[in-house]
């Protein structure tokens, strides 16, 4: 068993995740390396979901009966936990959505409908990057098409980093919004937030950060980031699917128009017009994902008890080990930074000219779950001239033995197609 400095006590942690015990394909031990797609769930989160449904299930913010009050307290309690988790100045800055995609779409739509000074229109520019997940590309393309605004982006260096060499030409006085990913889901790159935020603030542009691959893996402090909006999703950080978060600065959430209309988001309604509830409720139309929010609250408690700084250190040690070992596999090319510096826990690679589908299939037969394809970041594949990649991604319960299994598995893949 390989011991690396900084590793967590994975033996204890893995006992919290029932699914990690299962086997696949006639008794093969599962090696789950698809954490960038979704994480597994600890018993503490599953128990919170069950408890909620077994003891307190009701709709929120309306009944005066006991269950309604309990459900509301649990739902709003989850908001408090998330606010503390990201160091938000106010709990009212935490909007619950269904996922990070909805969070990003919410911002993009609001900026198209907003009054000045936020309004994105034909005389303005939107800036994104070439390493975005499709969820941080398509909403901005839609906004650009609808408003006539110009969509610009930062390209990538051969090393898998943002090319910021012409930052002053990309982000200009016309730029209204800059939206970028904190940690790339395909390259693993951790982006230099400060440099981008400083330039955006110089020209008065709003900053949106997609933290989907950051929130599960490192301490996240929205005040330190200096952004105006931060989006992430619950299911990649031990919570259930169906719950996402948009953090936004309070004055912006107050000034900007609502996204979806319906129950819960109003103050008064007449047949001719309505007034809206204050944020965050203004952005939470309809019955929210209550149980899922409760699950997210439990996930935040679980991760915080272990410590996000310790989780970050664990993954850093593991990524260092994985990069070193993978670089020794013949014909393997890492797509993204080949060091562990400023690098998250997702490692994409190609293996000679063996197609990632074939790599993934042969690994699966050995019980190893990886993701194959373009990872909803097709422009990255185009940039590096590859059809797709195989991606292994780690989490707090991943071990050096998982890395060893992957490396052995890849050897088997090479023999199979050799």
């Amino acid at each position, binding site marked *: 068993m390989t011991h690396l400095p900084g590793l967590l006590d994975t033996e204890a942690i893995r006992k919290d995740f029932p699914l990690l015990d299962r086997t696949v394909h006639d008794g093969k031990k599962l090696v789950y390396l698809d954490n960038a797609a979704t994480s597994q769930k600890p018993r503490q989160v599953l128990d919170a979901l069950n408890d909620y449904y077994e003891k307190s299930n009701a709709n929120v913010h309306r009944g005066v009966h006991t269950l309604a009050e309990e459900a509301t307290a649990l739902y709003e309690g989850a908001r408090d936990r998330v606010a503390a988790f990201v160091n938000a100045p106010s709990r009212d800055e935490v909007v619950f959505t269904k996922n990070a995609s909805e969070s990003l779409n919410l911002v993009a739509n609001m900026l198209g409908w907003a009054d000045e000074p936020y309004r994105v229109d034909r005389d303005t520019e939107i800036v994104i990057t070439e390493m975005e997940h499709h969820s941080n590309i398509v909403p901005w393309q839609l906004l650009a098409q609808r408003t006539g605004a110009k969509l610009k982006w930062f390209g990538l260096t051969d090393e898998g980093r943002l090319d910021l060499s012409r930052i002053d030409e990309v982000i200009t006085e016309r730029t209204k919004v800059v939206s970028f990913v904190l940690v790339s889901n395909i390259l693993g790159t951790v982006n230099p937030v400060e440099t981008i935020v400083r330039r955006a603030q110089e020209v008065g542009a709003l900053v949106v950060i997609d933290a989907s691959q950051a929130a599960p893996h490192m301490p996240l402090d929205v005040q330190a980031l200096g952004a105006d909006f931060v989006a992430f999703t619950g299911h990649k950080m031990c919570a259930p699917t169906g719950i996402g978060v948009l953090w936004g600065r309070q004055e912006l959430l107050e000034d900007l128009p609502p996204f979806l209309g319906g129950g819960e988001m109003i103050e008064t309604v007449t047949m001719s017009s309505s007034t809206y509830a204050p944020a965050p409720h203004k952005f939470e139309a309809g019955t929210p994902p209550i149980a899922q929010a409760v699950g997210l609250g439990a996930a935040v408690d679980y991760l915080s008890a272990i410590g996000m700084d310790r989780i970050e250190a664990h993954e850093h040690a593991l990524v260092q080990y994985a990069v070193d070992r993978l670089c020794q596999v013949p014909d393997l090319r890492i797509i993204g930074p080949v060091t562990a510096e400023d690098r998250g826990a997702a490692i994409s690679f190609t293996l000679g000219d063996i*197609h990632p589908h*074939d790599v993934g299939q042969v690994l699966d037969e050995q019980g190893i779950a990886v993701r194959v*394809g373009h990872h909803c970041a*097709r422009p990255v594949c185009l940039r590096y001239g590859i059809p797709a990649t195989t991606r292994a991604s780690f989490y707090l319960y991943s071990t050096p033995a998982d890395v060893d299994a992957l490396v052995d598995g890849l050897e088997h893949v090479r023999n199979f197609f050799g």
Partner: protein
Amino acid sequence: MKLDSMYQDVILDHYKHPHGRGLRDGDAEVHHVNPTCGDEITLRVRLAGTTIEDVSYEGQGCSISQASASVLNELLVGKEIDEARRVQEVFLELMQSKGKLEPDDAMEEVLEDAVAFAGVSKYPARVKCALLSWMAWKDATAQALSQGGTTSTQEGTA
């Protein structure tokens, strides 16, 4: 081992030594993609009357999608369109069988090397890989025929 049922030697042979790969003249060209994995194929069909004179293709994808295009070329070139359509339908039926269809002699006679894909039908995520070139061929053939049809109609009404 189950993998061998998917990666039959016939499939790996076609993957490593594809038949008819490369783009040549055609009456219609289509470009199909598999959005979930990014596999792509550009495929051209050339007809001579009701006979398929050539199916040429270029693309990128996994061994299953590449081998499938190679088998298609080997199987359909030289056939009458109606006969080729029947082969395509039988192949589609096999691929949608979720591994429950055991190819019999009659099916083997129609599909030849393509029966090797029976094992792929057990893997839902890979069925689309096997079908990519076949759907492209169907589309290209329909376009080639409708272009031919349009031309002849125009000639007829002129």
